[in-house]
């Protein structure tokens, strides 16, 4: 069965510092991975997906199949990046529109 692991429950950085939120996965086949974000008092929303290879709000994430990782990175963190971040991947076995989420990492960017 697929699994998503976010090893860090909490991550605290200073404004302007680089940030990396870790995500590791186990999946049979070629996964498609996502990062979802939840800002304070807002709903959970899609941040980015690996298939689109885009940078959203300065964040990027590269799929590393050798390390089975999909870490989220930003070179210069901003205070408004403070939020809960969830890594997610579709369920294996054909139902690729159902997502399995990691437990999340709470990012705090200090001034």
């Amino acid at each position, binding site marked *: 069965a697929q699994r*998503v692991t976010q090893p860090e*429950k909490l991550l605290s950085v200073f404004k302007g510092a680089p940030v990396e939120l870790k995500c590791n996965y186990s999946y049979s086949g070629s996964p*498609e991975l*996502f990062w*979802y974000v939840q800002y304070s008092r*807002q*709903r*959970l*929303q*899609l941040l980015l*997906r690996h*298939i689109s290879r885009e940078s959203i709000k300065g964040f990027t994430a590269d799929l590393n199949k050798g390390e089975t990782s999909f870490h989220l990175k930003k070179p210069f963190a901003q205070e408004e990046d403070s939020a809960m971040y*969830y890594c997610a991947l*579709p369920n294996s076995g054909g*139902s*690729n*529109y*159902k*997502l*399995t*989420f*990691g*437990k*999340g990492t709470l990012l705090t960017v200090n001034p």
Partner: protein
Amino acid sequence: DAMVIQNPRYQVTQFGKPVTLSCSQTLNHNVMYWYQQKSSQAPKLLFHYYDKDFNNEADTPDNFQSRRPNTSFCFLDIRSPGLGDAAMYLCATSNLLTGWDNEKLFFGSGTQLSVL
């Protein structure tokens, strides 16, 4: 411009007393999901509707049921809530068209359920 609306935001029920949580959407999406999220845990999929077809996850307790009377509305029924069912319940939708954008989920704000 809320697109996935969950009511109420907070729900308090008594142990064993049936409770219904509601979700509506203005996106006309064909898939609606219910996730359960307990404190410090990952959102966990309970079940989903693909159009009118109900799909239950294997480990979802029988105590949890769902109804989708039309495209816009979906309900989560907990027949006999236990203390362990206290959680945030998230409704989400997606639109399964051909192409690669089908896994993007749109979430509601959630209903925080307390069981006394």
